[in-house]
Structures are given as structure tokens and as C-alpha cells.
């Protein structure tokens, strides 16, 4: 069902956990299945210095969470904002059709976290 890459990220998820003084936090619930993901960012000089996640969800949800943190680590916010659901799924060598929606969780949570950072900074 899942690709080797998905199983790798599922069994050894990268960047699990919380960042204590995160300056950007995003949480989304997956409307389709009720799953939840939270992303913590440490942004310095417009660059994502550190990122961590917590996820309540299926194998695909955990793998996409892990993958998205790996994809954005060290990236600028602009670069991070360009990461789409499809890009996350692609980086995992694809997801089963019924599981494509799970990748929304990861990309949306990331985008929420960046938004959170920008709005906090603006204040």
C-alpha cells in the first residue's frame, strides 16, 4: 500500500516533538477524516532554523508530517510557502489515491505556522 519512503518516514519520523519557544505554531484538523497535526517553527532572519511536529493520524499523515519538516528545514519562508501537498506526496514517492488528502494536513499545518509567525511578527 505505502511506498518504502512512506514506511521509512512512518517508522522513523524526523523532527517529532515541540519547540519550547516556537515563534510560529500551526494546527490543522483534517476535515475529511478528523485527524490533527501541529507544526512548530523557529524562524530566524526569515529562515526556518528548526521545525518540529506532532500528529494524530494515519501512516500517511505521520509520514507526510515528517517529510514536510525535512523539506522546509533551513529554507526561507518564501521557499517554504511554495511547498504544496503534491510536492510532499511526491517526495514520498507517492501516496495511495485514497490517502492523497492526508498530505493536505502537512502542507496546511506548515502554511498555518508560517502565517502565525508573520502575524506575530507584525504586532
Amino acid at each position, binding site marked *: 500500500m505505502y511506498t518504502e519512503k512512506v514506511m521509512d518516514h*512512518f517508522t522513523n519520523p524526523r523532527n517529532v516533538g515541540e519547540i519550547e519557544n516556537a515563534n510560529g505554531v500551526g*494546527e490543522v484538523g483534517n476535515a475529511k477524516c478528523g485527524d490533527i497535526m501541529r507544526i512548530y517553527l523557529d524562524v530566524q532572519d526569515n529562515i526556518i532554523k528548526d521545525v518540529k511536529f506532532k500528529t*494524530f*493520524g494515519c501512516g500517511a499523515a505521520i509520514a507526510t508530517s515528517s517529510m514536510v519538516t525535512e523539506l522546509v528545514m533551513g529554507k526561507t519562508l518564501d521557499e517554504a510557502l511554495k511547498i504544496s501537498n503534491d510536492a510532499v506526496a511526491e517526495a514520498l514517492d507517492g501516496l495511495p489515491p485514497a490517502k492523497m488528502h492526508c498530505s493536505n494536513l502537512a502542507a496546511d499545518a506548515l502554511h498555518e505556522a508560517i502565517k502565525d509567525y508573520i502575524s506575530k511578527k507584525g504586532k
Partner: protein
Amino acid sequence: MERIYFDHSATTPVDKEVAKVMLEYMTEKFGNPSSVHSFGRETRKAVEEARHSVAALLGAAANEIFFTSGGTESDNLALKGIAFANRKKGNHIITTAIEHHAILHACEYLEKQGFTVTYLPVDENAMVSVEDVKNAITDKTILISVMFANNEVGTIQPIKEIGQLAKEKKIYFHTDAVQAVGNCHIDVNELNIDVLSLSGHKIYGPKGIGAIYIRKGVKIESTQHGGSQERKLRPGTENVPGIVGLGKAAELASIELDQRISHLTNLRDKLIKGIQEKISDIKLNGHKEIRLPGNVNISFLYVEGESLLLNLDLKGIAASSGSACTSGSLDPSHVLLAMGLTHEVAHGSLRLSLGRGNTEADINYCLEVLPQILERLRSMSPLNAN
């Protein structure tokens, strides 16, 4: 890696003896039972013997047993066959919210054909109330269909009382006993059952074969048309190896029933107790006592079912879950929701369904592995309070 199978409610391995007799009826005794010649005679005889074995398991007469392609077909035949044959008497059917989809979707189809269906609620243990059944009866009610035991949470329904009620009111009573057969004592006369569905692959018999018990005199019409097999109720060349295999599986179930029940109950209770001792924030789903001997269904708060399953699978344990994420559908298990579980709690449900091949060692291994997995998953969960 050794693999441990805890998904017997999904399907069971075919018993070695069953497989052996099936093989004989595939390659050697392969005749069509409708044929006049010796090849036909030997399979015709075998089919009738199997019919007797299935009947014996249910306390029925052989001519009240008809072979189908499985539990789903038996359920469809029971509901549609009775509904259409008794349309003149009434158009109301009573069932429950926790039936298998074979029943629920057949009911939805019947609603489109002009029937009215009452879906009874269940309590927090997934138990149907006899009082609710009684109150739902109208003068248009022609059929009550209540499952014997639930496939997800294992709760066993008050079949005898519902059967009694139906009998008094002269309404047909069907029960989907796919999970109960081979796991519970069933006597269709004692329990007042008019029609009953069963499936071969849940009782160490083959997939693709099932049976329906139809009490003599019940008015029912066929849903499939063709030749005159199964007294025209279920046309199509008889699946002889499947039938013979089901017959053998029924025979074994009759012989081993008491032993299976005590073995499974023992393992089940050990597993439940162990989980309760080792893991916090859990919820046992289904009735504490009145449940299938091999059924364990537990919600683990803060985790999601599919990731739990995948982790167990990586450790060699096969199980199932009522999570939406395993089914590709929008909602988690309709059974868990009907019992009043929230989406989140339903999401974290795990079903471990034990079978006759399982051992204490299997239980111990599971009790060793499960806490580690939960710790890992809970440490990743945004829902975890700690």
C-alpha cells in the same frame, strides 16, 4: 519474523482437514451435481451431506439450509427476498444502526423501492433494547433483522427475546449470525429464529461460500435467476468444493464449540486485563461480559487506529481498527459512533479478534509490544495531555 494473527473476525485460515476434502472435490470428484452420471451422483451426495452438517450446527432441518456465495449474499437474500415476497402484507422493516453494511446497504436499497426501515439505536455497550424493538413494531412490519453478535465490538444481542417477540407478533425474524456461528451456541428453534445468515470463511471454512437458514414455511423469493439449483432459490452451478468445505467446517465447529469458547474466553480476558494493567487512557468497547469469546475492542486515547495497526504489523501482529483512516471513507466506524463514541475516540480503536490457533504466548507477546507502540505514538500526538 513470526506472524501472529489477531484478525479472525475479518477472516480465518481454512482448516487443514477442510482444505483436504475440498481438494478432493476439485480435482477428482468434480462432477456437476445436476448431472445424471456417476460424477454428478457423487457430488450431489456430498452436497446433501454438507447440508446436514450445517443444519446440525444450527439445530435446523437439512431442507431449511440453502447455500449462497457468502454472508453478504445471505443477508441480501434474507432482506430483499422476504421484503419483496411479503410486500402485500406490509412495507416496514426493523433493524439496528450497528448492522454490517450488507444489511444496512440492502435496507437503503429497499427504502428506494418503497419500504420503510427503522434503524434502532444501541446503548453505550452496543446493546439493542427489546423494548425498543417492541415499540418500533407497526401493523406494516414484516421483518425484524438484528445481528446475533457485532463484528466490531463483539456485543451479543438478546436474540431469544427478540425472536420471541417476533413470533408473538407473527413477524419474520432474521439474524445475521456471520460472527456468532462457531463462536456461540445457536439453536434456531430455541431462539425463535426464522432466517439466519452465515459465512464459511469466518469459521475456518472457505471464502466464497455461505448459507442461509430459512425456517420451513417462510415466504421468500430469490434474488438471482437461472437454473433450478438450491430448489430454485439460489440458481447457479453449486460450488461443490466450497459447500463440502463449509460442511466440514460446520462439523468441526459442532464438535469443538465448547472447547473453542473456553479457550477464546480465557485468552480474551487475559488480553483485556493485561492491556488494562499496562496502558492508561483506554476504553473497552462493547459489552463487558456479553460479547464474542474472541473479541477485544479497545480505544486508545490520543492515537489513531491505522498508525497503530501499521506499527503492530511491523511487529508481526495482524489486527484491525474502526478508524476512518483504514477504510478510506469519511467517517470512522458507524458502530462506534452509534455507541456514542466521539470521532477521536473511535479513531483510536483497535480490534484484536482471537482464533482457535492463538496461544498464551501470542497474548504475552502482544502485551509486551503494545505498550511500547503506544508510548511512541502518544509521544507524537498533539492530543496527548501529558
